[in-house]
């Protein structure tokens, strides 16, 4: 069949499907029952037009139409995060447990390094100045050591709100960056975890020597449960990406990366949510002027909650 006869025969169908597709694209209701048959005919027309090389411009038109139809008919929302409740009580803890070796490894690295540095800094008090600039150390000292330090002063609600926003902006962004930099063969993630361990170990040891152990630890224990765990989980997600590139196994690197990215997405999403919770605790609970024993008790309960939640929630029923 020649070009113009072909066009004369098909034009009415193509105009009709173009109208339908445009209506659906705009979100209007249209006669959906008409679409599949028109779309199949369109695919047929496209194949014919291309095979007979009727006209480049006509093939381009039919191709764009078929693409729009394909987008509409074959859109699939698989692997989506189902409701927040199901995600928090089932999908996220499961995803964390499926990466148990990495979770355990990063926790061991982080807390081992922090403890080792704390001990070293206890024995060699000047060590902290090799890693953290003097001004920053004295800033931290001012926050916790002096008797008129901010941790001993009541804070008003609007300052709490400011800090809540700041913690979300700062900490969740750090977690996302820790995750993404895992794509650099895991190096970026590891550097981030090591630097965090360094800071925690050195600063807590230094403050303990300066006699500010109680104001410091009672301040951080509450949100530490969610914050430290979430940062390490962001590290787990990042390492998953890096390891997929380093050791792709039987797949190509791109295929391994794709699978790793999909499986690490719930972990980084959950870590982000945990950091929002941590920001709430850090902004509204941690600065409250209550006896340290209360702070420690609540902090311990929160650590236990995190451990039980991530360790137990969402297990399949044994039946």
């Amino acid at each position, binding site marked *: 069949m020649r070009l*113009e006869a072909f066009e004369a025969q098909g034009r009415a169908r193509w105009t009709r499907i173009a109208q339908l597709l445009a209506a659906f694209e705009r979100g209007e209701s249209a006669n959906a029952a008409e679409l599949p048959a028109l779309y199949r005919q369109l695919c047929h027309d496209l194949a014919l037009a291309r095979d*007979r*090389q009727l*006209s480049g411009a006509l093939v381009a*038109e039919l191709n764009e139409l078929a693409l729009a139809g*394909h987008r509409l008919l074959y859109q699939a*929302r698989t692997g989506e995060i189902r409701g927040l409740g199901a995600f928090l009580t089932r999908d996220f803890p499961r995803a964390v447990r499926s990466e148990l070796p990495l979770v355990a490894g990063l926790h061991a690295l982080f807390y081992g390094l922090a403890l080792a540095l704390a001990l070293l800094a206890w024995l060699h008090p000047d060590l902290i100045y090799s890693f953290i600039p003097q001004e920053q150390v004295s800033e931290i000292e001012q926050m916790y050591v002096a008797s008129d330090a901010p941790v001993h002063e009541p804070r008003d609600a609007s300052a709490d709100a400011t800090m809540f926003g700041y913690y979300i902006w700062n900490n969740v962004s750090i977690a*996302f*960056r820790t995750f993404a930099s895992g794509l650099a063969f895991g190096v970026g993630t590891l550097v981030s975890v090591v630097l965090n361990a360094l800071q925690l170990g050195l600063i807590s040891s230094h403050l303990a020597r300066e006699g500010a152990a109680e104001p410091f630890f009672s301040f951080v224990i509450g949100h530490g449960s969610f914050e430290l765990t979430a940062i390490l989980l962001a590290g787990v997600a990042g390492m998953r990406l890096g390891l997929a590139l380093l050791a792709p196994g039987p797949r190509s690197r791109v295929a391994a*990366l794709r699978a790793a990215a999909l499986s690490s997405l719930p972990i980084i999403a959950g870590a982000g949510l945990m950091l929002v919770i941590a920001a709430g605790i850090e902004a509204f609970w941690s600065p409250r002027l209550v006896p340290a024993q209360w702070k420690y008790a609540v902090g311990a309960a929160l650590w236990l909650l995190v451990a039980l939640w991530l360790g137990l929630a969402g297990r399949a029923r044994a039946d």
Partner: protein
Amino acid sequence: MIDTVHAVQTPEGVDLALRVAGPVPRALAFGVDLLLQGGIAIALQIALSAFAGFGVGLYLIALFSLLWFYPVLFEVRAHGQTPGKRMLGLRVVQENGTPVGWSASALRNFLLVADFLPLFYLAGLIAMVADPSFRRLGDLAAGTLVIYADAPRPHVSRIPDVTPVPPPLALTLDEQAAVIAFAERAGSVSPERAAELAAIPLSLVGADEPRATLVAQAAYLVGRGR
């Protein structure tokens, strides 16, 4: 053939051609989005500065959402187009041509940080140039493409109304397509160039009036006068 077309085979058995977009339009779209995000941030700062402490907290949360979720929201909710991409006529789709979902969009946008490494999106640029479908690292991990989003334009025959003349030789499909393509596009090049091009298939058109002869043959080939 070197081409920037990514073919997708549909269940109907036809290949759809996705025209992937290169680094330059994508960088421009990114720039437009950046300007828009900056504008929104400044507007928010002015609006929220009236509420002291709470305003600052809200502003920081808004800034956080703007940085990480602005592209995700638009890509999922606005047919794969952020305002910048819409302006440049681009669209984000899955590799099979279907719309992006939340997880793919979140992945490709969070991993933009990795594309930035070591500085100024060098990793992303290298990945894009090395990949036949211009995918940056985030696209590779999420399985997405950035394509040109053209609205289908009805094809209008631009072959002028001339008396059709059958070609003196039997033409293959490729040759017929070339003759038709020439006749459709002859109006968009200078008359001298059109004449020069038409004179190439000498045995087909003869020495006098090659352009008019070729257009008349094209009119015959598209089926006029029969």
